[in-house]
């Protein structure tokens, strides 16, 4: 991985003859871009939450999105996933312009997100809550439920088997028939991740996957995210736990006051003066 990264960096240096710590964070070396965020803007009244943010996520990476509190990380997630409408700029998923689309349309294009606080599904068991994940289920059409119960049943059986397989992979299959509201916060995070995988996303947006999770489960989550990535899922994750980000993500995008401060491999981000200043300096 690091070899590849070095090679890429070398390419950049050769082709464009720009210094490694260029001020323009827009990295054009990425060949296969799953998610392109271009000049995204969003203001809430007078507060500019996202200020011309531009970055790209390359297929097959785990890209970290970090920044001090209030840097606008969650706003960017909401803009990308369609929960907020941007004031300007573009979001592309797999080369398709999804700017201003509804969340379900963005999800249709292969982008699935999770939430910072685990979402509880009352009155459901874990495996039932998992079954919300799969996309385009025939049984989600009212007409199909009445006219072709056979195909609905088959799809349901397939999805249930798949859900149980994924729960097994996440080593939480013993929770399958527990009420979805009775499991621990960390387990909820695992379930949420597992459910997102049932949607077979091209790119997964993880909003603080280990916030408030005990160290054991945290390592577990790190392993799972790494495994999913090795199996081909691209991830973009927000996280405050620096150790977690640095051990998992490459590259890391640093956000400050709504715009991208820099982007680079974790070691370089950690030693970058601007990043340190953004975290410690507290603003302008």
């Amino acid at each position: 991985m690091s070899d590849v990264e070095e090679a890429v960096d070398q390419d950049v240096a050769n082709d464009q003859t720009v210094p490694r710590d260029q001020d323009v964070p827009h990295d054009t070396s990425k060949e296969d871009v799953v998610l392109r965020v271009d000049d995204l803007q969003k203001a809430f009244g007078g507060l500019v939450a996202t200020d011309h943010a531009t970055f790209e996520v390359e297929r097959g990476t785990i890209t970290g999105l970090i920044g001090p509190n209030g840097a606008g990380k969650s706003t960017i997630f909401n803009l990308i996933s369609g929960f907020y409408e941007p004031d300007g700029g573009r979001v592309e998923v797999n080369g398709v312009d999804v700017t201003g689309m509804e969340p379900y349309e963005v999800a249709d294009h292969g982008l699935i997100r999770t939430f910072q606080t685990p979402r509880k599904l009352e009155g459901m068991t874990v495996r039932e809550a998992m079954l919300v994940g799969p996309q385009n289920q025939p049984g989600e059409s009212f007409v199909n439920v009445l006219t072709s119960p056979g195909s609905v049943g088959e799809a349901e059986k397939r999805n249930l088997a798949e859900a149980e397989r994924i729960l097994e992979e996440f080593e939480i299959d013993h929770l399958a028939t527990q009420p979805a509201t009775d499991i621990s916060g960390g387990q909820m995070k695992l379930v949420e991740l597992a459910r997102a995988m049932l949607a077979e996303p091209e790119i997964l947006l993880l909003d603080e996957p280990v916030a408030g999770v005990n160290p054991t489960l945290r390592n577990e989550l790190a392993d799972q995210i790494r495994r999913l990535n090795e199996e081909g899922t691209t991830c973009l994750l927000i996280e405050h736990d620096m150790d977690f980000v640095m051990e998992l993500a490459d590259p890391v995008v640093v956000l400050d006051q709504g715009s991208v401060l820099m982007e680079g491999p974790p070691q370089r981000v950690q030693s970058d003066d601007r990043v340190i200043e953004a975290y410690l300096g507290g603003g302008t």
Partner: protein
Amino acid sequence: MSAGTRLQTAWADLTRAEQGVTGFIVGFAALLLFGLLSGGLAPTYFLYLVGIAGMYALLSFGLNSQWGFTGLINFSVAAFFGIGAYGAALTTADSSPLAGGFNPLVGLLVALVLAAVLALLIGIPTLRLRADYLAIASLGLAEVVRTIVKNESQWTNGTAGVRGIPSFFEGWPVLATFPEAMPGLEIFVPFGARIVLGTSFWSALLNVSLVLIFVGVSYALLRRVHRSPWGRVLRTIRSDEDLARALGKHTYSFKMQSFVLGSLIMALAGVFYAHLNLFVSPGDLDPITTFYVWVAVILGGSGSNRGALFGGFVIVAIREGTRFLNEFAWIPFDVAPLRLLMIGVLIVLVMRFRPQGVLPPQRELIWPSAVDEAPSRPDSGVREAKAGGGDE
């Protein structure tokens, strides 16, 4: 012997709440039977009450598929009920100020179409917003519909109401003349009263069969869709709409489907009412109906179809049953006017001691054929916790 043991196993297989409800129903049925045999309860009136109970069950089904499934707060149950009743009445009655005299089936169709249109009209602006906005808008809608029906007398006869509504089976081959064709029966009960079953009894019986068909079909339909992936999306929306959206569900469309479905079932109740009562007036659109139905759904257990059915019956039992309490001379005060109070106390008690309702939905709802053949069917956990959220 074997039938007895089977009955015992079936009984042991029920949750405590189910046992309680079963006991209650058996006891109540025995009471009704006693009333019928002793002559305290006239058979025709009894059938009328069954019809009203069926009507409330339909209304509860409708609200349950909006509030119970999807979490949509609809305070215009009475409006959709009224649209159903007036739609049927104005299409079929002789005295209709609009084109009357059509076959009741046409009236049924007109009523359902009207209800669907009204549901769309109120749903389009509000269902994209947070749940509270539908609540506010529907509260207003109920009054708007009632006021229009009351004041636009060139279309609705205003406060005079619509008279001369035919029975639902008017113009049908055999059933239209069934009540007249049936012989009058007299039944002598030992130690009891003489019971006369005449024409009105047979037409009431027809009405009851009609409402039983409506209730049966609605129940079967709702039961199926509730367990389907469609119902699962609705339940996800109820718990957390953002989660459903993030998982690629077009929540607005699902909410609209659920809202229209519920409204249609409420209108169906209205159609039945028009043909049961043979007279509709603006008073039938009073908001109290809405609140009775809300009580029924919450009492039965939000999200549970059989709970809605049970709740609907209980409301009618309280509403109508209190009339009979006055006949007991040893009660030193007038009981009937207290029924609103009793319903209020009942809902307070339910919220305090059993907030999930008497018969909350089953804990797990997965398409039945998928679970039965799934590789690792759980053998524990599901049955015990069926009674609801927590263990007492």
